[in-house]
């Protein structure tokens, strides 16, 4: 699966939950121009692995990133793109992570992507949206994000809505039951 995650708000809780689910079902890569993900890698590297997830932080286009790392799409079961200004070809799913009101530029970009875009709304403004996965951006959520980055361990995100929403959204595409997807999303690091 190739998943594009868009939106100008901080999308890390969504991306980490995605990685947690996807890494259980195959080789995963995360490509982003967000420097924050470098924290997941050793010694501030721009390319490397956290557990078995390949992470590349670069301003290059998706094709150029593949060239840089020396792999192709086929080398990965799943690729997550968190790149703001480029649209990789053949995305199987587009997620739009919303914070406060969406600005004009973001809206135009989403129109360019076209097709079906699944919205995930982080309820900073307290206004939930129909058809979106509405997530409370409470402090335990961000504490877990910090924990994931500091300990470099994919801990479960403490958001029922996010986990349930992603389980419903991805289970069939991953060929598993929703319950199984939810179990993976919520299971703790057992070592």
């Amino acid at each position: 699966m190739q998943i594009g995650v868009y939106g100008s708000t901080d999308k890390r809780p969504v991306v980490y939950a995605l990685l947690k689910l996807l890494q259980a079902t195959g080789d995963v890569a995360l490509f982003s121009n967000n420097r924050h993900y470098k924290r997941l890698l050793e010694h501030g590297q721009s390319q490397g692995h956290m557990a078995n997830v390949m992470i590349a932080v670069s301003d290059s286009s998706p094709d150029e990133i593949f060239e840089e790392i020396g792999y192709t799409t086929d080398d990965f079961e799943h690729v997550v793109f968190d790149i703001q200004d480029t649209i990789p070809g053949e995305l199987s799913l587009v997620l739009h992570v919303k914070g406060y009101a969406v600005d004009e530029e973001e809206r135009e970009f989403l129109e360019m992507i076209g097709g079906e875009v699944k919205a995930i709304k982080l309820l900073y403004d307290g206004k939930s949206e129909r058809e979106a996965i509405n997530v409370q951006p409470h402090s335990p959520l961000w504490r877990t994000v910090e924990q994931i980055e500091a300990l470099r361990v994919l801990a479960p995100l403490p958001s029922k809505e996010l986990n349930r929403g992603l389980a419903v959204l991805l289970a069939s595409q991953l060929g598993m039951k929703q319950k199984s997807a939810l179990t993976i999303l919520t299971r703790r690091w057992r070592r």
Partner: protein
Amino acid sequence: MRIAVISPDRKQGGTTVSVLLALALAQTQNLTTCLTYTGNDSRTITSFLGIKPQEDRTRSLTQVIKLLEANAISGNEIVDYCTKVPGVPNLQIIETAADSITDEDNAKLLRFAIENLSHQIVITDVVTEIYDEITGSVIDNSDLVVMVISQSRDIAARLKGWETAGVMKYLNQKGLVFVCNQYDPYVEAFRDTTKRLNLRHRRCAKISYNPFIKRTSNTGKLQTILPPIMNKDPRVIELHNDLKECLTVVLANLGRRTIWPQS
């Protein structure tokens, strides 16, 4: 097609990988598969699968050896001495070890079995040392060698030793693929493991560490792990993709395509 499963060091999980490969080949690819093993004192493979020693005297190994020596057994009759693995259609095992037979007889019987078994896949778990005669004979008769390794640093040293001794060259000529057993992503990413060990990543697959492997093998029910793996049970979900990768690497090197059942 004959596959030899070897490991550069003891206790790497060669038997576990042999059984998992055999189970997956028999169940997902519908290939008639037979498991064999070298050595006269190892019963691990049968204990993993809950197979009890045969009581039938007419099928005793001493009897088979006598028939072999008298040239009174033909190649296609060896199938009659195979035991079905309980609960797994397509998978059989041939026991070639017993207290009542010598190591020489054991080797003779194993050689005869490997040469004559008519199964589509014959997997031999090589527990004897690499320089033993029977190991050489099994490898010579194989179409592919699967080397079971782990993420331990000792393995790198062993592989280096084998490289110097020319063993790797010999194995590579036969066709060599690697399976990293008890793989843990938090020890090291798989790409980093293969890079560190100087192996071609495309010839490598992994079996993630999972407590259910040990649990089922300890109770003699290792075969019961396959249905949950195929059903993507969250407890063993990583093994779903791992097994698929293992089969793809193994079968591709045997010139076959893997048809993986869709869940």
